[in-house]
């Protein structure tokens, strides 16, 4: 599974994307796995209300299933326009 990070999430984790092998069934389970890996992940994912998630480039929710998903993206609320 490809996991991609943008804006300050990318900066805190220190990389723009990575390939992961995971058994996580939902986004939340993936977040718990990441938090447990290293301090920088724990910091980046400390406040989920400040984060958004997209599954295969569609905005989604933290309780969504990862079934069939190939790309998960984490980023802060968007500030376009």
């Amino acid at each position, binding site marked *: 599974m490809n996991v*991609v990070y*943008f*804006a*300050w999430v990318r900066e805190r984790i220190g990389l723009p994307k990575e390939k992961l092998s995971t058994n996580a069934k939902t986004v939340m389970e993936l977040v718990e796995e990441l938090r447990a890996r290293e301090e920088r992940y724990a910091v980046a994912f400390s406040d989920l209300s400040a984060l958004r998630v*997209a599954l295969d*480039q*569609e*905005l989604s929710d933290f309780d969504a299933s990862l079934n069939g998903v190939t790309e998960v*993206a984490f*980023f*802060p*609320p*968007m*500030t*376009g*326009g």
Partner: protein
Amino acid sequence: MRIQVQDAAFDLGAETERFAKAQDAAGAVVTFTGIVRNNADGTLKCMRIEHYPGMTEKALQKIADQAQERWDLTDLLIIHRHGDMVPGEMIMMVATASKHRLHAFEAAEYLMDYLKSRAPFWKKEMTADGAEWVAAKDSDEDALSRW
């Protein structure tokens, strides 16, 4: 309908003129342009816009499709830049055309409201003191509730 995501600057005058001239059924054309504004202290050196290639285009297409379903538009245009811009540079524009001025206005406002909070762009301000990510405003999220 045209949607462009690009690093390069765009020519607002030429784009507006071309868009309006192409309308023979519409009587009303509305444009919105977003410009890099300096901060209160005037110390902004550069605005950097990051985006999510692939998702950005899909998100803008979806927002545009929703606007076309909801209002009687003869045409619409979205141009949004990413990369580095200095104060005074144009970040993005939308244009809408309709027979009815209210449709053109409302569709342009709708595009802007959704583009602000649902298209994957992130702004970072670089000043003499360092760099800071622009925080999303609650008012931008709230703006969506009127549609």
